[in-house]
């Protein structure tokens, strides 16, 4: 009897979950998941719309959107995928802008390990250097640029381990398997375990050492009639939203257009 009751309850709740009537489906690059959750909480306080979030890699979202995935907004981890979607004609005109600019940091789970980082990299006194795959992740491409600027590519290349994305790169370092890793500053700030951060050490890479890691958002073609999606995009330009984005270690964009400089 009890089991039946529970089963009925589960079935019932499965069918009464928020329906799609007033919701906006948003695809978000996983590196932005934490700030996005805060942004949505803030947005929903003042709006009738519900934001349904899906997190994943930008490359996968690109493939899915091309095949008709029902998203209204796409927050990419880079500019390349929104660019490609624009060329494919799947994006609403003039909807694209840079919503956040990522910051790169060299992080070690070991205390003081990231001090005098250049010397350490040059000497090779570390076991592995984790970086996001430069081919796939904008943070990886930026890492490559930094290493090139420091003329450290040849010195370090044999010790590279590549994460498929910035989250995995972070994992390699946090599990102690790599002494050092180029990760996103947002990953350090967004963590729950502040204690662990104190144990480790990091060096914030000066942003003049690489091209800005711009992350663009686009309104997708299917969203022409979706007022909620437009409202959410407008919200992204408010000071409130910008403060949240900055709190998580990104530079918030203050220009409407991706083509303009930030």
């Amino acid at each position, binding site marked *: 009897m009890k089991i039946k009751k529970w089963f009925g309850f589960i079935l019932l709740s499965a069918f009464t979950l928020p329906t799609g009537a007033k919701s906006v489906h948003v695809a978000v690059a996983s590196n932005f998941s934490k700030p996005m959750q805060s942004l949505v909480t803030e947005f929903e306080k003042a709006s009738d719309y519900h934001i349904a979030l899906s997190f994943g890699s930008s490359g*996968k979202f690109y493939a899915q959107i091309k095949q008709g995935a029902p998203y209204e907004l796409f927050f990419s981890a880079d500019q*390349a995928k929104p660019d490609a979607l624009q060329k494919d004609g799947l994006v609403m005109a003039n909807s694209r802008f840079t919503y956040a600019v990522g910051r790169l940091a060299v992080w070690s789970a070991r205390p003081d390990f990231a001090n005098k980082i250049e010397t350490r990299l040059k000497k090779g006194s570390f076991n*592995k250097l984790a970086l996001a795959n430069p081919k*796939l992740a904008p943070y990886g491409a930026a890492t490559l640029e930094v290493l090139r600027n420091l003329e450290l590519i040849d010195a370090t290349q044999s010790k590279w381990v*590549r994460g*498929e994305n910035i989250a*995995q790169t972070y994992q390699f370092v946090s599990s*102690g398997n790599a002494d050092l890793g180029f990760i996103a500053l947002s990953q350090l700030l967004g963590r729950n375990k502040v204690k662990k951060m104190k144990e480790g050490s990091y060096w914030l890479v000066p942003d003049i050492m690489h091209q800005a890691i711009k992350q663009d958002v686009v309104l997708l073609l299917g969203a022409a009639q979706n007022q909620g999606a437009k409202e959410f995009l407008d919200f992204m330009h408010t000071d409130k939203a910008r403060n949240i984005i900055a709190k998580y270690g990104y530079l918030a964009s203050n220009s409407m257009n991706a083509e303009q400089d930030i």
Partner: protein
Amino acid sequence: MSLSDGDMATIWLTLRLATTVTVLLLIFATPLAWWLARTTSWFKGPLSAIVALPLVLPPTVLGFYLLLAMGPNGVIGHFTQALGLGTLPFTFWGLVVASMVYSMPFVVQPIQNAIEAIGNRPLEAAATLGAGPIDRFFTVVLPLAKPGFMTATILGFAHTVGEFGIVLMIGGSIPGETRVVSVQIYDHVEALEYAQAHSLSGIMIVFSFLVLLMLYTFQRKRKAVGMTYGR
């Protein structure tokens, strides 16, 4: 189809990995399967469950725990460091160990089924004729359970070739060392290089089909013990 040198390297690495894993698994899984098939111990249940865990667990979960366990602060990591081997993640042998865990049920279970199907009688008969345990294994069990071993070999090999989540977690995508075909395809797709992804995926599909065709043709011919696995 155009395959780059990088693509070719991943194919060779994958074949090398799958072969190594299959051979090692047959060596380790056979005694295990033998014990599971014959024992009446209470421990049979728990051990069978552990062997079958990779069937249920998402590879990323398995990979994540292996990354922690094999890391410098993990249990396996302490062990390998004590042996002077360093740590296993980001190495070919790290992938071998992880793949062995992942493909274990696909090798143990067919062999176990085959041995169970033989039953006690042939073994007892052999024993009364004076055959010792080792003799019995090689002259009775091995020939009778051969189809089970074939299935185990094919499934173990194929499953390792198709492995992805774990390799992604502990591999680090090092060319010639840990970058296998499945990871290369993923990289191509993520980088929007769909043409290259198609070529490699095409090869994977043809390969997988041929392997399974081999398996099922073989099963049709011989409706023998231990051959119904995967049906």
